[in-house]
């Protein structure tokens, strides 16, 4: 009990300590303290790289370019960081925007994928999903299938289902009609599912 009380009283102090640390680092980077800038890169490059890689896989070379862009963009807007949230969350917010910009650019270009026929029979039952929901296998299958999909399909699916963007948002950001995005998503889902079902049966 005493320990719990101690933990409870320690928590706000830890949070405010972290916030102070974040602000101090930001101020030092803004003063162009080269060692603080190196610390900034060291502290966040792993998280950003890991996030970007997972969202762009298997385009790893582009992931590296994007990580650099994210840091440059963070530097450009660093003076706007107020310390109200953690610096980690703030930097990851920039990373998310940059990934979204990347999706937007890639999906704006005309598609060169032939329309996949939607087969209504390629459905997977709830029961099957529950059976297959052996976390690791599902994760491996998902990553493998996503990596093998044509880029527009892969990006559209990740943007819609992992980044939780609506078709309307995607349409606004890519300059396409909502209908065009829905069609792209439908083809992407069908392709994903076909490959999924094929993986399950083989």
């Amino acid at each position, binding site marked *: 009990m005493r320990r719990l009380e101690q933990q409870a009283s320690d928590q706000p102090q830890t949070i405010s300590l972290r916030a102070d640390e974040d602000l101090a680092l930001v101020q*030092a980077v803004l003063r*162009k303290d080269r060692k603080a*800038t190196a610390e900034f890169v060291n502290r966040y490059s792993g998280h950003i790289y890991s996030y970007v890689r997972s969202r762009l*896989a298997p385009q790893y070379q582009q992931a590296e370019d994007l990580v650099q862009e994210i840091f*440059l963009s963070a530097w450009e807007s660093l003076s706007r960081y107020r310390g109200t949230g953690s610096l980690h969350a703030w930097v990851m917010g920039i990373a998310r925007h940059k990934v979204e910009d990347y999706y937007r650019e890639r999906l704006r270009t005309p598609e060169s994928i032939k329309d996949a026929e939607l087969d209504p029979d390629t459905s997977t039952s709830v*029961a099957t*999903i529950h059976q297959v929901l052996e976390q690791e296998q599902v994760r491996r299958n998902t990553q493998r299938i996503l990596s093998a999909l044509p880029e527009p399909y892969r990006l559209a699916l*990740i943007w819609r*289902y*992992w980044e939780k963007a609506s078709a309307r948002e995607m349409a606004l950001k890519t300059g396409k009609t909502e209908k065009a995005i829905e069609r792209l998503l439908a083809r992407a889902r069908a392709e994903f599912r076909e490959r999924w079902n094929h993986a399950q049966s083989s």
Partner: protein
Amino acid sequence: MPSLRDDEFMERIADAVELSESAFAPADLKARVYSALAKQQSRTGQLMSLTETHAHGHQLCVFEQLVRIAPVGETVKSLNICRVCHARVLAEHLENAPIYWGGCPYVEFKKS
């Protein structure tokens, strides 16, 4: 058996699978990012001088230390001297660059 619509199916997959990868950023990538940042910082004015950097308690590398104690003005001490350092070139191109001295950010990137 109840079947799922494609949309619902994808939602379930996305909920069940976190797409994160536990990847450490490669040292050469960190080196390139740091160089790009330092270059960008120098474009809009001088970097913090080495005298001040030292006064803030940071460890300087052997080359920075030489510039810090040299009888030159603060303007020179505020230059981004990593731009002309071989450690930067090696670190940007090699994952395990043969650079080992203390106080160098490029050496630190290899360790973390």
